[in-house]
């Protein structure tokens, strides 16, 4: 990782992290590292999640019942904790996605508007 790459990254808006993590789990159970990687790969490294936020967020989501955690064995034969989306988590994702859509639309309206 170079500094240059870091400067290009976008900071995550408050509250969107959960949504992205939930989305990352829709394809199936993943461990923490895989979630982080998927986010970076999908956004071509434009979005990145810090480990310092990732794990507390994941553990909070376990507490809320959105995901369940289970120890398993990773691709490289290491013990890893896997997170799986629960039906409640799926419902939460739907709700947050809808809300995000409305938010983006509203911001767009404001930015496209002719200043009076």
């Amino acid at each position: 990782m170079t500094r240059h790459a870091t400067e290009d990254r976008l900071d995550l808006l408050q509250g969107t992290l959960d949504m992205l993590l939930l989305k990352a789990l829709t394809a199936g159970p993943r461990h923490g590292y895989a979630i982080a990687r998927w986010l970076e790969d999908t956004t071509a490294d434009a979005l990145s999640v810090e480990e310092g936020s990732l794990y507390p967020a994941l553990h909070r989501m376990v507490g809320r019942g959105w995901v369940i955690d289970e120890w398993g064995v990773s691709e490289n034969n290491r013990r890893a904790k896997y997170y799986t989306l629960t039906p409640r988590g799926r419902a939460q994702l739907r709700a947050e996605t809808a809300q995000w859509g409305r938010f983006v639309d509203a911001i767009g309206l404001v930015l496209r508007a002719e200043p009076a």
Partner: protein
Amino acid sequence: MNDRPRDPYAELRRILSRSRIDEDVAAELEHHFDALLARNLERGMSEEDARRAALERFGDMDRIREETGRVDRHLGRVEARSEHVADAVRGVRYAARRLLRRPEFTLFAVLTLTLAIGAFSALFTVLDRVVLSPLPYAEAGELVRLESAVPSMGEDAVWGLSQAGYFDFRDNGEALESIAGYSAGGANFVSEAGPARVRYAAVTATLGEVLALRTAAGRWFDPEEDLPGAPRTVVLGYGFWRNQFGGDPRVLGSTIDLHGFSYEVIGVLERDLGLPEGPVDVLRTLELDPSDAPVNAHWLSAVGRLVPDTPLAAAQADLDRLTSMFSEKFPGAYPSSFMEGTGFRTRVVPLKDYVLGDIGRTMWILFGAAGLLLVIAVANITNLYLMRIEARRRDFAVRAALGAGRRHLVWQSLSETLVLCLFAGALALGVARAGIALLNANAPAALPRLEELGLAAPTVWFTIGVSLALGMILGLVPLAYGAFDRATDLARESGSRTTPSRSRNRVRRLMLAGQMALALVLLAAGGLMLRSLERMRSTEPGFDPSDVLALEIFLPWSRYGSYEAVGAFYRGFTSEIERQPGVVRASATTRLPLIDGGPCATTFVEDRPPESGVEPPCVQYALAAPGYFEALDIPVDGTTPGWTEMESGMGGVVVTRALADRLWPGESAMGKGLKGNGWSHPFYRVRGVAEDFRSDGLDRPPLEAVFYPMYPMEGAPLWSPPNAMRVVVESTADPAGLVPVVRRILRDLDPNIPIAEVDVLEAAIAASPAVSRVSFTLLLLGIAAAMALLLSTIGMYGIVAQLVVERSREIAVRMALGAQLSQVIRMFLGQSLGVAIVGAVFGLAGALVATRALRALLFEVAPGDPLTLAAATALLLITVAAATYLASLKAGRVDPIETLKAE
């Protein structure tokens, strides 16, 4: 929440969780770090660069670990808290499920507990309302009844107050804040709906103050309305107002027709308020005149309110002082010869005691019986429960070894018994309700305030409390019993598995013996009551109440003011009834035996002038129409006067054999003279002597009374025309079927006269307080005894059945060695009878003590009656033997080979 029973390790894990969480987070982060490192290496970084880049990317590893760990710990706390609630819910659900897995035990336990708790709660309700707070008045503790005791007339001869006494106490009583008099009875009320008999009382206006009476509408009497010659006004009882006038307030100011006079309605009493003796429909004022000449007539019921904080003894002393001055104050009415001859004194009785009579004692006895029953039920269930625990001992031990804490096992046991008891408690409320209804339907008329009795808050709380307490006791018993001890004990025990630990067996037997003992106490009590009732039944009342219809008629004084008018009515009425088919005889009397009490009058005997210094006896009397003794099949020696004889005032009377023997011992009473109003000629002549019959109660001596004719003799006045009489109709078949005919005849004679208390005499007697008190107590004690016997029997059956299972190996060995089934059965019989005999010995000792409390209720049976005790013991032993025999038949199903192989 998943549905598995809680993981026994959960507790331990929580304790360890702090370090575990840290470990967990560390492992997870480690994996992430390793993955980053691997990726960097993949990209061609040097080992060192790769590590540095990964570290840099991670930032402060400790901070991440700390933060993530904090999230987990916080979640853990939340989980622990919600877990407590969830635990309770789950506990109840598992407990219910465990109970349902053993339907026989659960059904039996629920049934037993429901009945026992229900009975206990029902009696608690009655005790609470009837015995502990029987009076609906404010500050009821200050209320007393004032009555005159006349020891010479009999141990419990009690009169009311005289008018002179009432005024004297009112004006001079220092202990009394207020005093009121009343005279209660029935009255004819005529409305558009027809005539009706109502409960009526004439009272002094001060009654409102004494009893703190409040009105629901209108007002109470003013003092002026209680003065002689005041306008006629009435206050209605609440129930009467609701039923007769639909609770219409417009009734105030209107007039009602009462015994031929019209009265203005000025008020309605508040609900539940009435006379101490019970509800009343119509109240009017007595209008006593203080200037009346003092008369020795004690017809006034009196209640007083003591000056607050006055001890009863002080009030009694105050009234003793006033009563001792009667001879000086009222020499005419209370000559000193009367005071000394009769032992006359005024007695102060707490109003509560007066209202309750001896019913309070009965209720305590029944409450005690219900308590014993509850103890038996609990012992029984505990025993069965212990047996189940015995069977699951291995299971408990294994779980204890696996780390399931004692606490957890105790909680499991507690949750089961609490669910069981609370469920039974809820059902018991229904039983209590039914029980209260049963008490209501069968209670002697003397039970006060039962009418208002329902399932109120105190009963519900009491039931919940009892259920909770029972649940705790039952649930903790296994703990005391050592059922949750660890596996080491089990290991020790498995060597001697043929019989479960001897000490535990002994506990079970002791409990069983205790149950037997308590059951025997109840059986003995029930038996004694049964014997009493049987003795009472076999006591010949001396008259034949079968096929007799009895009804009460009251002729208003306004239209029936003379002996002639009253006599003519009853002659016409009874002779018209006698003309009907199916009627053998119709007559009338002022006093029906076993139902009515009666007045007594100082009675003078010819040839015995009162100057001799001995106060003449107060002899009970009644008036009777011709044919009375014949209608009740009471044999009469001599003759009974007929209508013509009565109407001509010939003055022939009938006395009972008991009175004849007292007044003229060793002589024939025939032709002797007596009278109730002064010693002067002419005297009434004894024309007949009626054979003895009982009137004050089957348990009382035969009646001593004079039966005067319907008309007085010239120069020897009677008291007053017999406006109120009981008409008796002897029929050939169904007396109840005559009611419509009798009503029609009455309507034709006088449409404004109601029939009150029409009943078949036999039924009326069965319902009379003298009889119903015994049958009521018997009914309840009988139920308690039967339930106790049933429970003990089931307990014994269960124990033996379990023993057969536990000792199947021993049985198998014995049978393999050639023992017969009968020998095995005999062995069990011997053991259980041994237990039963131990129980019986204690039970007999207990019964001898406990049944003494019944003494007052017993009739011609001593509390320790050997026959009853023997019968109760025999019944218990036989039932136990039968239960044991049935249960031990199971041993026949033991297959020696299979059983021994299984070991």
